[in-house]
């Protein structure tokens, strides 16, 4: 540890103030959500709450009938994530381990698909779901999100499998394993940790997805949790009702952010490496 001088304390103080500015919007909402009505009236906006008050949590949950919406979000995000990984895993195995000729081209296509703005595909997909009679059904959202994010998953898994230890592969080839066996008994167990991180990442992306659910799910009962809360709370001027109880609203915000925050706490270390996931670890 290096010596601290007055200058380093000044820098720390400046940083702390900056960080405080960063966190204040969320801090205000969070503390407001868990303050009791008495606390809200008697203490300053900035003061921390005296005690944890769960009543708004229950109110928000009942007011929005949030249990089915929460389950919608869990259902859509988890099935879509599963589809993405399933589609991506086999492709990435073939590209990363087999190293066919045109794999750079294929990876570029994957990244272009991942980057393309969704509004260029949302309307045709909407017409397609209408044509095959699944419009308004969550399966329409699940399929398109699963397929779209498989592009990114393919890219990431391929770059990981590219670095797969050659010695293991050589040994397997000498023993004459089949592709399927190699995939199932050697590759899959070894990249499970990467798959888990990737799954968590895609799950959160699906959880926070807006454009597809907004267009494909017209009915509030099938809609995802963040969208239901945000539209009901006036996050969207077209549908909002700003006159509602501010505390319930604050609690709604806290609720729909929880999965993302849990994700961050679990995968913080991997994220800190910038999702480079360069090695099989």
């Amino acid at each position, binding site marked *: 540890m*290096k010596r601290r001088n007055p200058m380093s304390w000044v*820098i720390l103080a400046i*940083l702390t103030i900056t*960080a405080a500015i*960063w*966190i204040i*919007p*969320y801090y205000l*909402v969070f503390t407001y959500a868990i303050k009791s009505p008495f606390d809200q009236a008697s203490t300053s906006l900035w003061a921390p709450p005296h005690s944890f008050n769960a009543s708004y949590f229950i109110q928000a949950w009942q007011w929005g009938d949030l249990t089915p919406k929460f389950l919608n979000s869990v259902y859509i995000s988890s099935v879509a994530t599963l589809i993405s990984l399933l589609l991506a895993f*086999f*492709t990435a*195995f*073939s*590209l990363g*381990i*087999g190293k066919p000729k045109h794999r750079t081209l294929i990876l*570029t*296509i994957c990244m*272009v*698909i991942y*980057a*393309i*703005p*969704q*509004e*260029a595909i949302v*309307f*045709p*997909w909407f017409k*397609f779901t209408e044509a095959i009679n699944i419009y308004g059904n969550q399966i329409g959202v699940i399929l*398109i999100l699963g*397929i779209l994010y498989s*592009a990114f998953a393919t890219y*990431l898994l391929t770059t990981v499998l590219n670095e797969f230890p050659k010695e293991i592969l050589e040994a397997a*080839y000498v023993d004459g394993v*089949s*592709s399927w066996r190699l995939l199932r008994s050697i590759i899959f167990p070894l990249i499970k940790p990467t798959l888990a991180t990737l799954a968590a990442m895609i799950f*959160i992306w699906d*959880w*926070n997805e*807006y*454009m597809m659910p907004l267009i494909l799910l017209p009915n509030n009962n099938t809609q995802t949790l*963040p969208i239901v*809360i*945000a539209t009901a709370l006036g*996050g969207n*001027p077209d549908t909002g009702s700003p006159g509602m109880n501010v505390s319930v*609203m*604050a609690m709604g*915000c806290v609720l*729909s*952010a929880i999965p*993302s925050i849990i994700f*961050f706490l679990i995968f913080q270390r991997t994220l*800190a*490496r*910038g*999702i*480079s996931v*360069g090695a099989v670890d």
Partner: protein
Amino acid sequence: MKKPLYLRRMRRERINSKHSLFAIPGLLILIATVGGALLFNFYYSFTRWIGFGTPHWVGLRNYRYMFQNPDVRETALHAVLTIIPYSIIPTFLGCFLAAILFQYISPRFGEAIASRFRGIFYLPQIVPLAMTGVVWNWLLDSKTGLLNQYLHDHGAKWHIAWMEKPLATQLIFALILIWLQLGFTLLIFIAGLSRIDTNILEAAQIDGATWFTQFRLILIPLLRNEIAIVLLTTSISSLKIFAPVYWISHGGPNNATQVPSTYVFHQFYNGSNVGSAASIATVFALMVGVFTAALMKFQQRAHVVKI
């Protein structure tokens, strides 16, 4: 003894061709779905259509109209300008902040403190944007907003219209975008810095280089690759920015913060003019696609992705 080259090559090729069968289902589904959707979108862009009934072929009229329409030009300009607060400023701030946290704070106050700071700056990246939108609207509303209430309680006689005048909104929204994006760039640069060989920095220190000299002459050049990639990825996400505009500024007031994504989305959503929206989306997708392909060409070693 090694087998002859042609034998090894034969075996390799046989194995490779076996593996390549595995790529077919995933790629087929991906390319058929997205490619098909893009083609349909391309077709719609040559029609006049309200979303149901039969599309009416109008040739290039939508494209001509698009280039003449001042609204479209303005939204496109906004998307390009978004690059400043959503890409350029966060990149340089992030670089600087990462260096301070990693090279200055961490050795003096411990890694735990540095990573706590990193977590705080990253928070806007993980909270759903729909929620962040609600939060900012709650703070900045001119009548019921927390900030104005607070000022009112402390003696202010007037209400500040934070998000009601075009220029003021654009500036405030730009600040919010910096606030949103900084965590991402910071994360990437800290990851980049942790790969740097610390011997170079120690040698520089022994030679009497100040912290800022080290930053300018050693860290920046070593982070060149990361800086370029972060600039490019965040530029792409600036051009296609949707959720922050949709949830925080809603494109208003008077379309002052409207961008192509939200503009097209509203046209699709209201079903007012699918053909015209499709033409904008087509041009836009093409631009982002070319940009991304260029990025991939550039991106040789580091695999930095937007999360």
